[in-house]
């Protein structure tokens, strides 16, 4: 219910707008005070903007503003917002930050964005910039309008002058295309920031995408992007209304081949990953349904081009298709196109669609950089079934049968499918474990079974403690979790205590749970590897390993009993996706944290000058899969280890010994006397600072920032591989 539509019940007249028109400041303040105090219901973004303007007006007379701020309390979101705005307008930034801070995490959507942005802005004005980054990221995720995204982008830029923003990934993104792309930049920067990506954006001159990619000295080349977004639109294909059926296939092939040529150039000459937009099938077409029913109709050609683009993505490394056709469909093609802005400014899609579009683009960027969520943490009562198991019992809860029960069963089905393709499920519930587990064991309509959960936490402790435990047990960062709970108070608590955890706003109706989780876009992926399909099983196997460890007398016994087999191979095309996945997401055992895209790794392999190694670990309980990567290159007569990382899943197994021993063997074969390894410090890799010393390397240089360079003389004996490891080393063979 909009504040503006409240019917008058006092002497001062009706809506906020009317109150705003009262010329006498004191009378206006009194009218606003009366409206705010009796207000019920949510405060819309439009109301919030009006209240902000009103507050700025009141601040012209300090006394009026101060009295109003005192007269209204925190009775509702509108009052809190107005109070915060008044304090800000009076330059009481600490006070404003305190007021906004109380309410910022309760609100969602555009309203939440405005609260979070106001909080961040006032924190910055008090010099508390580091506390403002999370609110800014939250704001950028919630915002639904260009103006708010633009304001957030501005605020990030302002704060950046004093402090480097925290980010999981820093990157350079180039936007090239056939429409005006300038509006995308502030929105895309903000959306990327919400996803933990600090993006610098280059926009190519209008319609110059071919020249920028193909000419040797373009602005694009000078910019050295990590990602090139090719936003070509359907009009730029210049398809006629209809072609002859016999010519259709050739035309489709030619259009896709033209794009493939550009992708190849991006990969080979620029080393960037390409995000290629596919093509909207436009709503309006003079041929109507004929455009698709005719084999040579434009709509049909566009469908075929889009299909062939998906196939090309499979064939070509370093390319990801952005499904613009799907985005336009979901948004609504009638709103997606604005013919006035197309003719006056070549704006496509409509400006209003840019917030929606950039949210989807940022989701794809997250997938590209390995920053998507890995685990859904679920409450149970009224989240996975209707009712409370501890009170209603197995027969009283609603699961399957009946509309409400069907909605919950469908949600369970959606989660089950997520799990099958590699997303882990965890339970975090305030319940007795026996009551909770009984549903998954015995309820006839349950879709999820107990073994579908990688960890099941049911107790009465605060949920933030449980979430920390879940993250630690699954070896995941808090920023890999999505927390789903029907209880608003729990959601609020987790947003406050664990801001890195994504906590979507859940609607009251369980029929809408699926779409809510789906629209987070937090689980997008570019590929599915064998590891993904087997991830849940892998975690179960790991649980068995933990039991063995707990029951072993000592570490050596445990490791010997595992019967580990290590396989070392040079990089190959088939395993490239998984290798790249590891390169981009491993943080702890990662000596140099060099992130590379699939295109860049492919180029490295093709150059032939480097020693590459991936490590696969199998043991008695199963296959851990590819869990180690090493790249070493010759430089100045020395073998320099450019990249060395191991998945935290298999740390403490001495697999690192096998990897290093193989590098030493290679160096000896190539008559390279020295091996050098570098430690580049990050916030997460402190544990490997001196790992090279374990193998007989000595430190030859220390940097001011804590970085170290180590060197090993291959004439010295070793390094040894422990006897309990069986090693199959294929990296010494000539690569075919």
């Amino acid at each position: 219910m909009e504040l503006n539509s409240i019917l008058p019940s006092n002497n001062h007249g009706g809506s906020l707008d009317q109150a705003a028109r009262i010329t006498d400041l004191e009378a206006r303040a009194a009218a606003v005070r009366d409206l705010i105090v009796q207000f019920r219901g949510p405060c819309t973004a439009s109301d919030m903007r009006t209240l902000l303007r009103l507050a700025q007006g009141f601040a012209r007379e300090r006394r009026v503003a101060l009295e109003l701020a005192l007269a209204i309390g925190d009775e509702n979101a509108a009052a809190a917002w107005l109070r915060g705005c008044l304090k800000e307008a009076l330059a009481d930034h600490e006070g404003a930050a305190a007021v906004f801070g109380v309410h910022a995490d309760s609100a969602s959507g555009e309203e939440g964005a405005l609260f979070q942005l106001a909080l961040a802005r006032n924190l910055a004005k008090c010099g508390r910039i580091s506390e403002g980054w999370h609110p800014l990221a939250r704001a950028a995720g919630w915002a639904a309008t260009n103006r708010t995204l633009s304001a957030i982008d501005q605020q990030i830029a302002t704060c950046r002058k004093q402090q480097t923003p925290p980010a999981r990934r820093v990157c350079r993104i180039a936007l090239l295309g056939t429409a005006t792309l300038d509006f995308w930049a502030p929105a895309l920067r903000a959306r990327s920031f919400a996803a933990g990506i600090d993006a610098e954006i280059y926009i190519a001159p209008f319609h110059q995408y071919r020249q920028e990619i193909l000419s040797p000295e373009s602005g694009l080349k000078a910019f050295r992007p990590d990602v090139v977004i090719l936003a070509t639109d359907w009009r730029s294909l210049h398809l006629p209304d209809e072609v002859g059926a016999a010519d259709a296939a050739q035309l489709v092939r030619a259009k896709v081949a033209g794009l493939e040529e550009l992708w190849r150039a991006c990969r080979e000459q620029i080393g960037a990953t390409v995000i290629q937009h596919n093509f909207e099938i436009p709503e309006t077409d003079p041929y109507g349904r004929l455009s698709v029913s005719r084999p040579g109709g434009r709509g049909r050609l566009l469908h075929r081009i889009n299909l062939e683009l998906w196939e090309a993505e499979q064939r070509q490394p370093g390319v990801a298709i952005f499904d613009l056709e799907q985005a336009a469909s979901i948004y609504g093609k009638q709103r997606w196109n604005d013919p006035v802005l197309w003719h006056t400014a070549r704006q496509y899609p409509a400006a209003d669609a840019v917030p929606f579009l950039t949210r989807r683009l940022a989701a794809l960027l997250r997938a590209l950089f390995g920053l998507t969520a890995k685990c859904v943490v679920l409450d149970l009562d009224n989240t996975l079934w209707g009712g409370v198991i501890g009170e209603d019992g197995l027969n009283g809860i609603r699961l399957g049968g009946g509309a409400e029960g069907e909605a919950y069963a469908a949600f369970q089905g959606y989660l089950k499918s997520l799990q099958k393709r590699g997303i882990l499920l965890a339970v975090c519930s305030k319940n007795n474990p026996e009551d909770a587990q009984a549903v998954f064991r015995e309820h006839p309509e349950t879709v999820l079974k107990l073994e579908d959960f990688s960890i099941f936490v049911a107790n009465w402790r605060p949920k933030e403690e449980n979430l920390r435990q879940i993250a630690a047990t699954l070896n995941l960062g808090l920023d890999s979790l999505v927390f789903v709970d029907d209880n608003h108070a729990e959601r609020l608590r987790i947003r406050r205590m664990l801001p890195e955890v994504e906590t979507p706003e859940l609607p009251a109706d369980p029929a809408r749970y699926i779409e809510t989780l789906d629209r987070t876009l937090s689980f997008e992926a570019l590929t599915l590897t064998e590891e993904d399909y087997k991830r849940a099983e892998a975690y179960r196997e790991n649980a068995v390993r933990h039991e063995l460890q707990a029951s072993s007398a000592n570490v050596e016994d445990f490791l010997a009993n595992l019967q580990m087999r290590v396989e070392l191979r040079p990089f190959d095309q088939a395993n490239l996706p998984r290798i790249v996945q590891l390169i981009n997401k491993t943080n702890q055992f990662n000596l140099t944290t060099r992130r590379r895209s699939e295109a860049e790794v492919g180029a490295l392999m093709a150059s032939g000058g480097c020693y590459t190694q991936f490590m696969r670990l199998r043991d008695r309980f199963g296959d851990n899969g590819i869990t180690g990567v090493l790249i070493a290159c010759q430089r100045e007569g020395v073998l320099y280890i450019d990249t060395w990382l191991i998945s935290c899943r298999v740390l403490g197994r001495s697999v690192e010994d096998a990897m290093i021993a193989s590098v030493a063997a290679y160096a000896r074969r190539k008559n390279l006397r020295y091996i050098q390894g570098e430690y580049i410090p990050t916030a997460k890799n402190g544990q490997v600072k001196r790992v090279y010393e374990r193998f007989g390397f000595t430190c030859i240089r220390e940097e001011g920032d804590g970085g170290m360079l180590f060197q090993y003389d291959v004439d010295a004996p070793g390094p040894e591989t422990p006897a309990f490891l069986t090693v199959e080393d294929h990296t010494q063979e000539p690569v075919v």
Partner: protein
Amino acid sequence: MSFLEERIQQVFREVLHNQDLIVSDSMTSHDIQGWDSFAQVRLVIAFEEEFDIKFTTDEVATISSVAGLKDALVSKGVAAD
């Protein structure tokens, strides 16, 4: 300054990144620093968002004064005070 004039000024300030900008009825695009043809489109989009209206092709091309903008808004039902 009327309520409408305050809203118009606020949009100009946001789009042109200048919180100290003063906007009055007599001003044209020549008087307001930063109001070039690229800003024109940004202003159009921002005003459409602020007032929930849509400008015509003709209006997008020709609005180049605050008075002209105000007239266009009022003609679309925005209250004049």
